[in-house]
C-alpha cells in the first residue's frame, strides 16, 4: 500500500522540491526524469489495490481520498509518456528557458494526472481535474509571449465553463450520494447532473463546440502539447465519462454519441485544410477524442478505453515527431517553422516512426491503432449500426488528412543528419505501438473480417486521396478560425459578456438602485411615522399624560398637606366628623 501511495507522491515531492530548491542552476530536468523513472519502475512493484485515506471528516460528511491502483497499464502509460516527454524536453527546450518551473510543472502534472486517473471519488477527481487544468494553463503560457498568454487564458476560460458545470453536476450527484465511482448502481442518477458533467467533459476533452481552446493551446511548447493536449490531459474527460458509464441513460447516451460523432467528423474536416502541423494534430486529437466519446456513448466503452490508450501512444509520438520537424525548422531558420510545406526531413528514422505512428492513427495493421479502431468499429456495428456511420465516415476522412500531411513529411527528400536524441522518444513510442499489436493480436484480435477489409480499403483510398490533395494549396484563413468559433469565443463572447455587464449595470441603476432608494424612502417615511408616534402618542400622551395625572393628583393631595399642625388637625377632625356621620347613619 505504501508503494501505491509513493507512485502518486513521488512526482508531487519532486515538483515541490524543484520549486523550493535553493539553487538556480541545477539539472532540474535530470531530477524530474529520474523521479519519473523511479515512479515508472515502481509500477512493477505495486500490488494492485485501492488506496484510501481520510481527507475531511465533519459530522456525517466524509471526504475520503479514494484511489484505485488497478489499471496499471494506464498508470504506466501516463508515467511513461511523461518520462519520454521530460527526456524530450531536455533537448527541445532552449537553455534560456526556465527549467525549474517547466520541469516542476511537468512533475506536478504527472502527479495530478495520476490522481485524476486513479481517484474513484468524484470530488477528489474534481480536485485533480482542476489541478490538471491549472498545469495546462501554466504550460500553455510558458513562453510568456502575448499570443501564448492569451491562448492560455482562452484555454482556461473555456475549460472553466466546463469546470463549473462539472462541479454543479457533481454536487447534484452528491445529493443522491453517488460520489464514489467504484460501485455505481446503473441508471440511478438523473439526466441533468450527467449532462452537466458531460459539459465538463466536452470542455476538457475539446468536443464540439468547446474545442477551439485546444488549437489555441498549441501555442505551448510542443512536448507539452504532446503530453497534455493530446495524450493524457484531454483524455481526462473521457476517463471521467468511462467512470460514469453505469449511470448513463438513453438521453444522456444519445447526447454523448452525437456530440462525439459531430466532433469526430468536424475535427477530421478541419484537419484537412490546415498547414500548421500542430493545428492539424490538434484537430486530429479532437477528432479522435470525439471517436472515443462516440464509442462510450453508444456503449462500446471497452474499445473506447482501448483507443484512449493507443491514441495516447501514437498521438504523443506524432507530436514528438512534429516537434523534431519544428525543431529542425527553427534551426534551419524558417520564418514559420510550423508550416508543413516548409518541412524537410532530417533523418530516415523519423520518417519511419512517423509512418508507423500515423498508420496507427488511421488504423493500419501492425499498429496498436488497428486494434482499437477495429474494435470500436466492430462494437459500434454491434450496438448501433446507424451511429457507426459516423465512424465509417471518419475513416477515409482521417486517412485523407494523414495522407496529405504525410505527403509533405515523408515523400519529400530526406536529409541524413545524424540521429538526434530528440528522435528517441518518438522511435520508442512507435516501437511500443508495434509491440502492442504484436503482443495483443493473439488475445485481442478484432473479429469481423468484412468490416476490416472495408475499413482498410477506405483507409488506403483515403491515403491516396490525401496524397493527391496535398498538391492543391488552400487559402486557409476561413478554416483558421475554427469554423468561426474562434470569432465566437474571442469576439462575440466578450461582446456578449460586455453587453450582459452593461445590461446588469442598467438593471442595477434603473431597478436595483431605485428599489434601494425607494426602500430607503419608505424606511425614512416609516421612521418619521414612528417618531411622530413616539412623540405624539408615547411621549405626550402616555408619558406626559401619566406625568400630568401624577402631578394633578399630587396637587390635589398636597392641599391638606399644608405643613401647619392645625391644618392637619382640621383634616383629622373633619374625618372624625365623617366617622360620626357614618356611625349615625349605620
Amino acid at each position, binding site marked *: 500500500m505504501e508503494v501505491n501511495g509513493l507512485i502518486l507522491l513521488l512526482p508531487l515531492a519532486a515538483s515541490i522540491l524543484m520549486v523550493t530548491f535553493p539553487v538556480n542552476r541545477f539539472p532540474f530536468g535530470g531530477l524530474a526524469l529520474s523521479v519519473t523513472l523511479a515512479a515508472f519502475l515502481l509500477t512493477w512493484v505495486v500490488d494492485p489495490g485501492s488506496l484510501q485515506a481520510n481527507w475531511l471528516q465533519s459530522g456525517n460528511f466524509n471526504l475520503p481520498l479514494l484511489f484505485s491502483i488497478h489499471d496499471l497499464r494506464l498508470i504506466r502509460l501516463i508515467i511513461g509518456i511523461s518520462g519520454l516527454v521530460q527526456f524530450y524536453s531536455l533537448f527541445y527546450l532552449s537553455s534560456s528557458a526556465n527549467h525549474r518551473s517547466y520541469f516542476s510543472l511537468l512533475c506536478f502534472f504527472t502527479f495530478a494526472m495520476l490522481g485524476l486517473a486513479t481517484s474513484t471519488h468524484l470530488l477528489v477527481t474534481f480536485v485533480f481535474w482542476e489541478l490538471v487544468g491549472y498545469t495546462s494553463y501554466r504550460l500553455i503560457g510558458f513562453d510568456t509571449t502575448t499570443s501564448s498568454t492569451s491562448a492560455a487564458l482562452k484555454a482556461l476560460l473555456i475549460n472553466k465553463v466546463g469546470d463549473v458545470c462539472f462541479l454543479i453536476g457533481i454536487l447534484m450527484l452528491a445529493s443522491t450520494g453517488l460520489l464514489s465511482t467504484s460501485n455505481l448502481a446503473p441508471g440511478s442518477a438523473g439526466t441533468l447532473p450527467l449532462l452537466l458533467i458531460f459539459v465538463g467533459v466536452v470542455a476538457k476533452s475539446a468536443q464540439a463546440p468547446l474545442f477551439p481552446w485546444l488549437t489555441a493551446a498549441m501555442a505551448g511548447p510542443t512536448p507539452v502539447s504532446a503530453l497534455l493536449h493530446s495524450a493524457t490531459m484531454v483524455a481526462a474527460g473521457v476517463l471521467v465519462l468511462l467512470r460514469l458509464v453505469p449511470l448513463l441513460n438513453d438521453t444522456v447516451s444519445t447526447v454523448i454519441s452525437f456530440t462525439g460523432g459531430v466532433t469526430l467528423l468536424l475535427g477530421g474536416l478541419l484537419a484537412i485544410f490546415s498547414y500548421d502541423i500542430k493545428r492539424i494534430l490538434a484537430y486530429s486529437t479532437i477528432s479522435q477524442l470525439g471517436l472515443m466519446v462516440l464509442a462510450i456513448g453508444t456503449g462500446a466503452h471497452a474499445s473506447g478505453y482501448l483507443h484512449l490508450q493507443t491514441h495516447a501512444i501514437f498521438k504523443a509520438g506524432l507530436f514528438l515527431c512534429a516537434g523534431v520537424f519544428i525543431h529542425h525548422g527553427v534551426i534551419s531558420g524558417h520564418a514559420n517553422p510550423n508550416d508543413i510545406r516548409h518541412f524537410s526531413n532530417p533523418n530516415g528514422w523519423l520518417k519511419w516512426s512517423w509512418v508507423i505512428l500515423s498508420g496507427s492513427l488511421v488504423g493500419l495493421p501492425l499498429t496498436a491503432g488497428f486494434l482499437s479502431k477495429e474494435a470500436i468499429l466492430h462494437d459500434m456495428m454491434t450496438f448501433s449500426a446507424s451511429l457507426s456511420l459516423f465512424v465509417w465516415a471518419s475513416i477515409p476522412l482521417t486517412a485523407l488528412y494523414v495522407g496529405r500531411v504525410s505527403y509533405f513529411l515523408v515523400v519529400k527528400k530526406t536529409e541524413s543528419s545524424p540521429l538526434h536524441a530528440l528522435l528517441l522518444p518518438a522511435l520508442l513510442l512507435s516501437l511500443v505501438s508495434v509491440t502492442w499489436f504484436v503482443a495483443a493480436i493473439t488475445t485481442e484480435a478484432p473479429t469481423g473480417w468484412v468490416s476490416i477489409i472495408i475499413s482498410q480499403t477506405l483507409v488506403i483510398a483515403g491515403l491516396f486521396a490525401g496524397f493527391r490533395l496535398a498538391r492543391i494549396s488552400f487559402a486557409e484563413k476561413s478554416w483558421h478560425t475554427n469554423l468561426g468559433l474562434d470569432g465566437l469565443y474571442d469576439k462575440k463572447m466578450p461582446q456578449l459578456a460586455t453587453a450582459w455587464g452593461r445590461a446588469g449595470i442598467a438593471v442595477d441603476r434603473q431597478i436595483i438602485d431605485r428599489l434601494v432608494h425607494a426602500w430607503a424612502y419608505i424606511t425614512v417615511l416609516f421612521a418619521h411615522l414612528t417618531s411622530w408616534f413616539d412623540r405624539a402618542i408615547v411621549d405626550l400622551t402616555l408619558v406626559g399624560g401619566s406625568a400630568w395625572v401624577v402631578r394633578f393628583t399630587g396637587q390635589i393631595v398636597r392641599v391638606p*398637606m399644608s*405643613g401647619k*399642625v*392645625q391644618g392637619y388637625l382640621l383634616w383629622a*377632625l373633619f374625618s372624625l366628623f365623617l366617622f360620626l356621620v357614618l356611625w349615625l347613619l349605620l
Partner: protein
Amino acid sequence: MSPVLLYLSFLLFALGVLVVLTKRDAIVVLLGIELILSAAILNAIHFNQQFPDRMDGQLFALFIIVIAVCEAVVGMSIIIRVYRYYHTAVPDQINELNER
C-alpha cells in the same frame, strides 16, 4: 334629668375644637385642649350618675385630670422650649413638617 349637662359637654367639646383649630398661639391651643378634656370629665361624671352604687366614672374623671395635668405640663414645657428656638409660639410658623 335634663340633657343640659350633655349639651354642655358637647358645647365645651365644640368650643375646645374651635379654639384648637383657630387660635394661632400654642398656649391658647393648650387651653382649648383643656376645654376638650373638661368636656370628657364632665361626661364621665355625668354618666356615672346612672349607676349610683359605683364610682368608676368619677375615678375615671380623676385619672383624666391626672392625664390632663401631665399633658399640660409637658405641653407647656415644650412650648417654652419651642419658643426659645423659634422665638414664636405660633404653630403655623413652625412648619418643619411642610415640604420644602
